[in-house]
């Protein structure tokens, strides 16, 4: 009896281990296949692929910098817009919302995540872009002269893309943050109240306690924004030129792959597009590793601060 249970235990461990290993294998295989397929482009351009700005399929000159810039810039702006909104939603639902309204609110935010991205794209083109164009036109000339808002008011461009992305990542950040807030022990809040904290101070203490999870939620949204393709390509204007301006049409890595892959018949061109995929893969890995590092370092320093925090709140 004892022996058979230990044998099934072993089989279980091996089986589960194999699934765990499968993930590692899949990630490695993706990396290797991308690298092999983009070899022609890697050989020809080397590190310059990351650093040059020309994307010219006719001349066979390929540089990914404008796409890297557009991807990171649009995702960062999207996060700047989405994070406060998503945190507000999460705090409201988990801390302030009347229990009878909680379920409908949760349902509605999660519904946002279920809408296909092409629908966001269509909404972007027909509703958001004309609205952004009107706002851009209405801005005073002094504002339009600054580098952040220069260029013709097309409506299409980085700002529209960032706004669409923001709407798309809000449900991700807010539902994960809400779960994290829910897992904050009641003792934390009770302790804060016991020390005479106001509601705001108690929530602040809970947010502080949950900070690593919230950073994780934001990073999840960032990862989602980096890879979003359809909705972005429909509103960003698809122009591979680096610009600081929020009004300028720009381009992202995922969008250029989706747009140009089908018609790329030439080997170097195809290989350059695959290398864009490789660059996106590496950047996504880097972003995720950085967020891990951030969470790890916060946990380390956090341990020292958590103890005095309630004291601080009561002061």
């Amino acid at each position, binding site marked *: 009896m004892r022996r058979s249970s230990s044998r099934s235990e072993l089989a279980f461990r091996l089986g589960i281990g194999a699934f765990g290993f499968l993930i590692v294998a899949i990630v490695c295989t993706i990396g290797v296949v991308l690298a092999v397929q983009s070899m022609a482009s890697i050989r020809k351009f080397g590190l310059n692929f990351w650093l040059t700005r*020309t*994307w*010219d*399929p*006719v*001349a066979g000159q390929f540089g990914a910098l404008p796409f890297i810039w557009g991807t990171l810039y649009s995702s960062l702006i999207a996060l700047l817009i989405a994070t406060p909104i998503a945190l507000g939603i999460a705090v409201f639902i988990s801390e302030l919302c009347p229990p009878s309204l909680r379920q409908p609110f949760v349902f509605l935010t999660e519904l946002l995540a279920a809408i296909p991205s092409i629908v966001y794209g269509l909404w972007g*083109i027909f509703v958001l*872009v*004309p609205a952004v164009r009107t706002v851009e036109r209405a801005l005073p000339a002094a504002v339009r002269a600054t580098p952040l808002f220069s260029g*013709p008011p*097309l*409506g*299409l461009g980085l700002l529209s893309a960032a706004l669409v992305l923001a709407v798309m990542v809000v449900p991700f950040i807010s539902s994960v943050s809400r779960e994290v807030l829910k897992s904050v022990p009641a003792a934390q809040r009770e302790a804060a109240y016991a020390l005479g904290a106001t509601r705001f101070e108690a929530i602040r203490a809970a947010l502080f306690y949950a900070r690593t999870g919230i950073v994780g939620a934001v990073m999840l949204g960032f990862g989602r924004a980096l890879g979003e393709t359809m909705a972005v*390509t*429909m509103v960003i*204007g*698809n*122009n591979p030129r680096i610009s600081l301006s929020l009004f300028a*049409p720009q*381009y992202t890595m995922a*969008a250029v792959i*989706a*747009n*140009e*892959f*089908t*018609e*790329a*018949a*030439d080997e170097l061109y195809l290989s350059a597009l695959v290398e864009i995929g490789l660059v996106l893969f590496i950047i996504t890995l880097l972003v995720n590793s950085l967020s891990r590092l951030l969470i790890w370092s916060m946990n380390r320093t956090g341990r020292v601060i958590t103890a005095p925090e309630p004291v601080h709140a009561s002061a």
Partner: protein
Amino acid sequence: MGSSVFRTLSTIACAAALAASVSADSIKINGAGATFPYPIYSKWFAEYNKLHPDVEINYQSIGSGGGIRQIQAQTVFFGASDGPMTPEQLQASPGRILHFPTVLGAVVPVYNIPNVRAELKFTGAVLADIFLGKITKWNDAAIAKLNAGVTLPATDITVAHRADGSGTTYIWVDYLSKVSPEWKSKVGINTSVNWPTGVGGRGNEGVAGLVSQTPGAIGYVELIYALQNRISYGSVQNMAGEFARASVESVTAAASSAASQMPPDFRVSITNAPAKGVYPISSFTWLLLYESPKNKAQAKAMVDFVKWALTEGQRYCADLGYAPLPESVVKLEMAALAKIKLS
């Protein structure tokens, strides 16, 4: 006498057996390629299947580049492309690939200028300068000179182009390269290019959408999209000096004018065709077939289909917004089809 009767009988028996075997297992042919001719190709395959229930043709509209890659890899029996294959691509193929023009299309300049209802006139040079970013206002002297009597506003021009690789882009930049040396040296010809200016939309419908929404925009789309979306499109000056508007007649005329100097492999650009009455931004779209296909049964069925498409099939063109091939080109193609080795 007896032996001849026997021979006749055995021939009949053989023919019957063959017919039975053909109808028993129908012939399936797979193809892939250009999206531009997809509506008429799918119409043709459906109609042909009604006439010949034993022949089933599948077509995936994955884009011209994809079609070329797939036929080179021999994963499909035939390919389809809006631009002819380059000599390097032909060299890299495992066998000799033949081009067969099937229908004609036209690309038109579409625009959206507030309060201008008139049909504008363009020359190739003006279109090239607009797309190079050298003409930036609608009331520029170069445009005003061609359109006397139209009050053009001082609105900024927004250039809209295809963001995705496309045969439509190929035809458009092929034309611009012929009329503007600067375009040819700075930008060149391909299914996607390094655009000097403008915003990119996905697909014909994407560009049509950008133009109809953005005041001051100019773009280029297949004729059928301009008609369906009711966007104004301009006429373009041809080599004979006339301002031609795209129509079934003016596009077929462009192909007729090319028929006399048709190269034997049909890989010819008919943009800016030098004749009267032609619309200058017209092009063939091609089917790609191996000269010596491995599967002879499929080859025979495909050749029969192409013969049907080039003759009876042409009557479906106009309804779907394509221009039919001129008789002269069809005659040349019929002769070329005989080159495909069926045994």
